[in-house]
């Protein structure tokens, strides 16, 4: 292989790097070593996704808030919480209340699992999509 062949190939690789936003390329093949490095500047947080993946990998499920409002663990201040750590939750079971615009909305679980963690304190505000409970599949 001659330099000019490599150069021609390099152009191809460089074009691909542009097309696919690749910033670094290293290649070794039969005595040839090629390293290409490009610009860039793009960063997109993926923490939420990563967490979700981790959760899946560990057989953990998360129940998130379907609306914005105030989180209540029990139907009334002097009553027992709907669920506590260690309880097994069934699909359709009410797990908490979220008060939104003065209306009490009962939140039901869509999944089955054992409660391993409650992430929000009673009477705290929650936003859309905020994790509320972590369940372990059983």
């Amino acid at each position, binding site marked *: 292989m001659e330099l000019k062949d490599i150069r021609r190939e390099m152009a191809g690789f460089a074009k691909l790097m542009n097309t696919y936003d690749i910033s670094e390329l290293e290649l070794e093949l039969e005595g040839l070593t090629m390293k290409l490095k490009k610009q860039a500047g793009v960063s997109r*947080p993926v923490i939420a996704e990563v967490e979700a993946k981790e959760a899946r990998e560990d057989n953990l499920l998360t129940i998130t808030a379907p609306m*914005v409002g105030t989180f209540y663990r029990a139907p009334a201040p002097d009553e027992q919480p709907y669920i506590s750590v260690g309880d097994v939750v069934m699909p359709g079971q009410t797990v908490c209340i979220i008060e939104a*615009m003065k209306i009490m909305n009962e939140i039901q679980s869509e999944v089955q699992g054992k409660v391993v963690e409650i992430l929000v304190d009673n009477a705290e505000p929650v936003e*859309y999509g905020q994790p509320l409970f972590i369940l372990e599949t059983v």
Partner: protein
Amino acid sequence: MSDLSIKKVVVANRGEIAQRIIRAAKELGIKSVALYSEPDRDSLPVAMADEAYCIGPGPGIHSYLNIANIISAALVSGSDAIHPGYGFLAENPYFAEICSSHGIKFVGPNYDAMSRIGSKALAKQIMAECGLDVIPGTPSIIEDMDEAREFAAKYGFPVMIKAQAGGGGKGMRIAYDIDELAECIKFAQAEAEASFGVPGVYLERYFKGAKHVEVQILVDEQGNAIQLGERDCSVQRGHQKLIEESPSPVLDEDIRQAMGRAALQGAKAIGYSNAGTVEFLVDSEGRFYFLEMNARIQVEHPVTELVTGIDIVKAQFIIASGEPLPFRQEDVDVKGHAIECRICAEDPERGFVPTPGVVSRLILPGGPWVRVDTALYQGCYIPPYYDSLIAKVVAWGNSRDEAILRMARALDEFTIEGISTNISFQRRLIGSLAFRQAEICCDSDVLALVFGGRH
């Protein structure tokens, strides 16, 4: 801590206008609460605000239009006001009413004024009654084709068809002869239904070679009303504004004064308060006709700010707090000339198709008398769900010529990579002789101007 009665405001919007509202709040000592949809989680307004709440997934209907979640966020955050920005819920009187019933101040006019303005036929009737020339049109939405034909016979073609619930060029058509009238009406009704949920359209006389000129007003809750001069928004593409400027290069001083007076008269008749805009059509002979009124902050408000020195969003908070306006008509002094170019994530080479994506490189224009309102940052993601407006570049100059040359160099500096934008389209428009000579009218073919034979 704010001296005003408003101490904490929910910003029920996104992008550059959310950022604009947060900036004004910060300067007044008002705490701000950003609301965001899931794809907007890493957006600048969320980072800038004192608090932030996710209110739903990407599509506007589930987040920025989700009244329950927005009101809830205001309540759980202990906010005492909501600023709606423009678009989304900004001109929804029911939303204003719900805010009010929860003890939250809606930063804008009250329900009654908003309702009157929202019904365009009623607004025109009120304006006509208080002595303004109103653009001739059918008195309400048309019920059958006979009405339409009758109107066309009286005023002649072309005829403009407009959605009752319209805005932003949606549900709008021009019929050039009797043969296409029925079809245009059908099209406009279908588009109106798809965009606003109601198919009603009405007809208006269409003026060739007209200019769109609007007057910015401020009215406090004590009834003090001032006008901040006009904006010329005649450079449009498909009824969507591209470039706005203040003052208008085509008004003479007499018309300017008359238009300002008319705007204040109309606002009074409507019972308006807070910041608003009265839109007029100026025909080729210099006569002006009331078109409609906008009950909100407008995209193009910065050009008025730069020539008057008055912060319109701050004024909105002051008015909504129940304070009297801190300035009077004689304090309003228009100095120089300001031009705004709307920068959109769209590809002019491919029919202006929206171009969501990641901004991989960003250099914003800056330096003397160039203002940029944008929530862009290098690495940010532009989601596909919303309006394609991503930045507003505003240039001020002692003269219109100076402002044009400044805008040209600002657009030359503006670099966005990763997505296509209309920056170079705007650059060519600003550099055109037609713009320099203020010859572009609402119905000018700006695509032909920019692309020439190629288009």
